[in-house]
């Protein structure tokens, strides 16, 4: 009918490409945006996971250099290495101290001390760079290697020398078969020596300088340690502070002496550690709280001192871990100066690197010929080994030996602990502290915090949602809903601040009064409702809808005041006037000011808006015809709400609770400020907790970049991410199903 004009055709052909273009542009933009968001979330996940990866990479060992020392001075007995792993030093069978440059095998220093005598035992302590040795004639020497280098270029060595820091004489006629010498923490020199006859001698010297006169005084003492058994002592160890000497016997017992007063050493305790087995090596682990014990059968175990009130000395030695065994006698145990790692070496030349806390054997040190001795580098990142071929230096890449799945999620018995526990304690006052990385108290704390928050928030938010969606007058709903939603805009740091600095002390002071009020409110609302119903219907009908709410407010204030007045009285009558003391005496519970109740209130306050909003939406979106259908069957509004609306909206309410739970799990500031951050595993309402999220915030200043703690924090971040991701996904899926369900109704 209509005649198509030329201009129409022209317009059509002109507009269509531009329309198609904008259509395509929009499609591209939307898909780029959508996939971009997904990619970013995936990238965050990948990044966090990537940062945790090094924790799971097995340690590796790499040969770095080797040298063949000259035999003219005798064969090397023990070796050590400097902190840059450039200078290897040791003592030879003829009592000569030698130092070599590991890069070019050049001899840097040599010192002949007892050229006529042959070595009977030697000991190397890389931490202080000391070598202790004893000769057949009974001389014990302690020497320290001094490497002077250009401070700006540690690789350029100016010179190497040895300084004798200790010299002792064993009683004549006695040959020493094992010796331990250390520069002690107070600067003194301690040496424990085990003779062929099984006697243990302790030598100590300390040089002090009078600051005023400038005169130096040397105190010296030597003594034989008293032995009260007929066992034969087979090995001996000395701690780094010069307070304890430990010896192992042929009957598998450990003997401990207190040598704090070197003039009068006292025997302290005897602990059976391994029945029947002759102990062949014993050594203190870094920190001196644990001893590693090796036997002639090649077994390796660790023992630690724990507090024991029954013992006369207040502590006892208990078994900690068993490590991979060797197939022959353990010859020596050397410890890492930086971590809880140690090396065990057996007669057949097998050397294993273990980690005490995890009880894992990390790797085996292998040399072309039989290993005779091996020690760590001072930084713990290398191993210097002595074999028939000469000296071999290794670099070990083992940055995170402290972490394993068992450490993160299992019960672990740490040094000084009588039993396995879940403990989080990432750092300590000293470098020899054993970090405790159990995530369980944090997961527990997260759950506990969320649980207490939901305990408070879920009923309140749900009942509020049911009231506003199903019973309240639309005018009230129009005020209440936005107001509650504004609550969500309150920064959580403000909530946390108020909770920690205002609410926690108030709750502590008037806990009984507040609890009384909390009990009184529901109790008194019920009679209030009855009273309201008793009012003549003509009067209530004439009042504007929602005026029952106005009646509630003054009564709430009155009840609050009544609780405030009643509180002290109730405390006096029921709790002898001091509820905290009562809690402690009757229930054995201590009341922390920052506790789960405070967190429940504060975090509950933070999650109420989201639970309220989502469940209110779910309830309101139940189709009107279902409500009408139920009412038309003679149901009351309450019956309709409970039997039709609530079940129909239940997936939405469930998803609201889940999202609230997810919010509570991820919440940081409130728990950081109001929980006290105590990583405990205790459900009690009067104690605090530490959550995963708050833990990250707390520990960041303690976590060096790329360190173990840094990566463990990433593990906890990953857990948190997965957790909230799963919760929100499940909640969202349920919401989708709900929408589908509504569409069929």
């Amino acid at each position, binding site marked *: 009918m209509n005649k198509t004009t030329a201009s129409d055709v022209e317009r059509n052909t002109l507009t269509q490409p531009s329309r198609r273009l904008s259509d395509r542009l929009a499609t591209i933009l939307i898909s780029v945006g959508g996939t971009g968001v997904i990619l970013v979330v995936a990238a965050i996940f990948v990044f966090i996971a990537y940062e945790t990866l090094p924790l799971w990479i097995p340690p590796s060992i790499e040969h770095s250099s080797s040298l063949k020392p000259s035999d003219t001075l005798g064969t090397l007995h023990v070796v050590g290495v400097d902190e840059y792993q450039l200078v290897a030093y040791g003592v030879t069978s003829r009592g000569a101290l030698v130092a070599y440059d590991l890069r070019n095998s050049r001899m840097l220093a040599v010192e002949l001390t007892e050229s006529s005598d042959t070595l009977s035992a030697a000991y190397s302590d890389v931490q202080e760079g000391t070598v202790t040795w004893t000769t057949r004639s009974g001389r014990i020497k302690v020497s320290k290697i001094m490497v002077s280098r250009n401070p700006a270029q540690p690789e350029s060595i100016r010179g190497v020398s040895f300084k004798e820091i200790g010299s002792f004489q064993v009683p004549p006629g006695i040959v020493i078969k094992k010796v331990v010498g250390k520069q002690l923490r107070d600067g003194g020199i301690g040496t424990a020596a085990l003779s062929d006859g099984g006697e243990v001698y302790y030598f100590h010297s300390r040089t002090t300088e009078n600051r005023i006169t400038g005169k130096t005084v040397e105190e010296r003492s030597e003594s034989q340690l008293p032995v009260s058994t007929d066992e034969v002592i087979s090995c001996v160890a000395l701690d780094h502070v010069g307070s304890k000497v430990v010896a192992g016997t042929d009957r598998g017992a450990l003997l401990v002496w207190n040598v704090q007063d070197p003039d009068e050493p006292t025997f302290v305790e005897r602990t059976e550690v391994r029945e029947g087995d002759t102990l062949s090596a014993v050594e203190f682990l870094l920190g001196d709280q644990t001893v590693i014990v090796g036997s002639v059968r090649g077994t390796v175990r660790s023992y630690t001192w724990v507090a024991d009130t029954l013992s006369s000395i207040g502590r006892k030695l208990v078994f900690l871990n068993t490590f991979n065994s060797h197939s022959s006698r353990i010859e020596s145990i050397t410890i890492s100066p930086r971590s809880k790692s140690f090396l065990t070496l057996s007669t057949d030349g097998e050397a294993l690197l273990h980690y005490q806390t995890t009880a894992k054997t990390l790797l085996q040190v292998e040399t072309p010929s039989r290993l005779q001795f091996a020690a760590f580098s001072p930084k713990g990142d290398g191993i210097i080994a002595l074999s028939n071929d000469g000296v071999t230096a290794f670099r070990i890449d083992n940055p995170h030996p402290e972490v394993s799945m068992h450490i993160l999620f299992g019960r672990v018995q740490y040094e000084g602990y009588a039993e396995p526990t879940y403990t989080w304690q990432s750092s300590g006052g000293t470098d020899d502290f054993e970090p405790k990385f159990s995530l369980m108290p944090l997961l527990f704390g997260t759950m506990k915090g969320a649980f207490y928050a939901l305990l408070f928030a879920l009923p309140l938010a749900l009942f509020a949602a049911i009231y506003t969606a199903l019973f309240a007058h639309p005018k009230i709903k129009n005020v209440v809903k936005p107001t509650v939603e504004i609550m969500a805009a309150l920064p959580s740091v403000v909530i946390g601040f108020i909770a920690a600095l205002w609410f926690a002390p108030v709750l502590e002071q008037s806990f009984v009064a507040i609890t009384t009020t909390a009990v009184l409110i529901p109790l008194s609302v019920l009679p209030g409702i009855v009273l309201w119903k008793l009012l003549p219907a003509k009067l209530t009908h004439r009042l504007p809808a929602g005026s029952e709410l106005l009646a509630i407010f003054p009564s709430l204030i009155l009840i609050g005041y009544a609780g405030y007045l009643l509180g002290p009285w109730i405390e006096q009558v029921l709790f002898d006037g001091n509820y905290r003391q009562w809690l402690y005496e009757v229930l054995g519970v201590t009341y922390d000011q920052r506790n789960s109740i405070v967190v429940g209130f504060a975090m509950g306050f933070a999650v109420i808006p989201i639970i309220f909003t989502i469940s209110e939406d779910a309830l309101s979106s139940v189709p009107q015809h279902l409500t009408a259908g139920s009412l038309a069957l*003679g149901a009351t509004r309450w019956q309709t709400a409970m039997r039709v609306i609530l079940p129909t909206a239940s997936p939405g309410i469930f998803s609201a609770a889940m999202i609230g739970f997810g919010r509570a799990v991820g919440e940081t500031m409130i728990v950081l400020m109001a929980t006290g951050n105590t990583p405990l595993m205790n459900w009690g309402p009067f104690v605090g907790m530490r959550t995963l999220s708050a833990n990250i915030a707390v520990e960041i200043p303690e976590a060096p970049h790329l360190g173990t703690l840094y990566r463990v924090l990433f593990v906890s971040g990953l857990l948190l991410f997965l957790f909230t991701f799963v919760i929100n996904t499940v909640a969202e899926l349920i919401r989708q199903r709900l929408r589908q369900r509504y569409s069929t109704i």
Partner: protein
Amino acid sequence: MEIVTELQQTLAETMVPGNLDTDRHSQPKIVVDELNLWYGETQALYDITISLPERRVSAFIGPSGCGKSTFLRVLNRMNDLIDDVRLTGRVLIDGKNIYDGSVDPVTLRRHVGMIFQKSNPFPKSIYENVAYGQRLLGKRKKAELDEIVERSLVQAALWDEVKDRLNEPALGLSGGQMQRLCIARALAVEPDILLMDEPSSALDPIATAKIEELMFELKEKYTIVIVTHNMQQAARVSDVTAFFYLGRLIEFGETRKIFTNPTKKQTEDYITGRFG
């Protein structure tokens, strides 16, 4: 005029002659006296006075917005749920004014069941849908509930179709089955009166026919009031018909008379399709 003749034929086919005689002797079940209703400031119903016979089907017809649905909802006080609804006049059911202060609307609705335009089964099982009203009353005994559910489903002509899947979700039924389920649900609370608000407007002709057949059977026990847009339906199923227009009751009388010989011009115009 073609439509009118067609309607007359339908009437002749469906109406049993004896029916009309008994109709005259039927007691009025619902008596409405001078009813005015306002939504806020807007008046929706004007001076409605009508009495509907017991155990008969009364049809309300009229163009959209004429107030027939509003009037239907007056009869079980469903309008109470809407804010700002105000009414004057009396609505007597069995001689008792249901807007009297002593009448509990919840109890009233148990006696005056309602079927909606859009079937609205609850998202529960077929069994639970039918048992819902009895459960509200506190009935818990399985045997009694089973009996009521079966009887109601039989009455609603749905039993044979669903007896093997009573515990399946009601939302899996077809549209017509869902509507009959809603009827069964309403019957389960043993009402006297059934209000039907365009019960078959969302159904296909076969399902509609089944519902209409059902109404024939149900009117032996129940007083049925139906709002419909479908004039053939009104002519087929109802005994008396009321024509509403702009909130007023224009004409009320025996269906046959309304469709064959309306007294008001507006009625005639409407049923012959001149407007509406």
